[in-house]
């Protein structure tokens, strides 16, 4: 979540409410996955860690609001996150593509390619391991699960590539 919030701030300095709205839009019907206060808690943590700096901006008829901007350290962490191909959850990758495109940090199609190569390597490793095990071993069953998940993720990456190529 910290990485996602940082990447969203890479486009321009912003405040908690707007970041939350952008996350809601990106998640669509899955927005329930986000707790009400999650964005604010994350921003506070990032500020403590020196990844973002906050500035109070006065508003005419409402309390001040805090506008957050990336620090140099925060920018570095965003770059590291974009290049990281360790595969977590599809939701995180989806948000990575949206944030990268919005801030023009990286070409989403290239990020998909990079990720696809990594998953293809893992699929090859898992498959080769499965082929060397006896067909009826319990370990093959476990590998089959790994293989099926990677296969599904790769198909989904194809869909991601198609979506962003036509943008």
């Amino acid at each position, binding site marked *: 979540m910290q990485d996602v919030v940082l990447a969203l701030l890479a486009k321009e300095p912003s405040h908690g409410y707007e970041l939350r709205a952008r996350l809601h839009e990106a998640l669509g019907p899955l927005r329930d996955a986000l707790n009400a206060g999650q964005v604010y808690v994350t921003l506070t943590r990032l500020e403590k860690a020196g990844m973002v700096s906050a500035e109070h901006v006065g508003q005419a008829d409402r309390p001040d609001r805090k506008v957050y901007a990336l620090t140099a350290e925060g920018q570095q962490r965003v770059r590291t996150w974009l290049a990281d191909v*360790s595969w977590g959850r599809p939701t995180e990758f989806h948000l990575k593509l949206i944030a990268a495109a919005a801030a023009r940090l990286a070409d989403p199609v290239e990020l998909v*390619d990079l990720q696809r*190569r*990594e998953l*293809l*390597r*893992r*699929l*090859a*490793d*898992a*498959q*080769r*391991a499965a*082929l060397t095990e006896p067909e009826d071993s319990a370990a093959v069953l*476990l590998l089959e699960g*790994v*293989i099926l998940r*990677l*296969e599904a993720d*790769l*198909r989904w990456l*194809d869909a991601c*590539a*198609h979506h962003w190529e036509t943008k």
Partner: protein
Amino acid sequence: MTVLRAVRLRKEYGRDAGLVRAVDEVDLEVRPGETVAVVGPSGCGKSTLLHLLGGLERPTGGEVHLDGRRLDRMSETQLSGVRRKSLGFVFQAFHLVDELTARENVELPALLAGVPSRTARRRASALLERVGLADRAGHLPAALSGGQRQRVAVARALIGRPLVVLADEPTGNLDSAATAAVLRLFGSLRAEGQTLVIVTHDSRIAATADRVITMRDGALAGETRLNGGGGGLGALAGLESS
């Protein structure tokens, strides 16, 4: 050292405003014993590329070298000889002869190439055993499942001891169990050093290759080497994060 090589290979259809570059200046080198998978969205030109590499279609421009010979300059007669003797083809739709048994289908290209019938029969039987279908040798294609038919087609592709086997979406018509059997077969062919070029949209088939080439809009868009030794299999099981 390469067994199959494409240089600035190009294939165009139509003309003027309707001109389509199905294959656009492709350079490719395949080494002996290597398995290369070509992937990409449908319509990216990967099947056309395979047809050009196998001499099934003539390029608009560029060169195709097979074992040092220029396929793009050959006459039709020379080409069909090369296709019979040096190449093996596997297609999505199997293309078996319905009236012939599994063994007769496998024998056919060898007989056409002038191999004595006894030798052809012996080789066909050995190959059917090799693909796990020794007990189906006398069956007609109609009596075989899709996966079995494709394994017969692979045996047929191998009978001429081809330099290169070219496979076009070999699992496109198969369910996942049949795909797994074909997958094992390609995995063992690779291990035995058979040179293979496979066009596929199936990531599991692509993952059997040494190299995966991505095509987009007729051109090569990237290459991934699958040499193993990546992050280790332990990471795939996901125990370290719990």
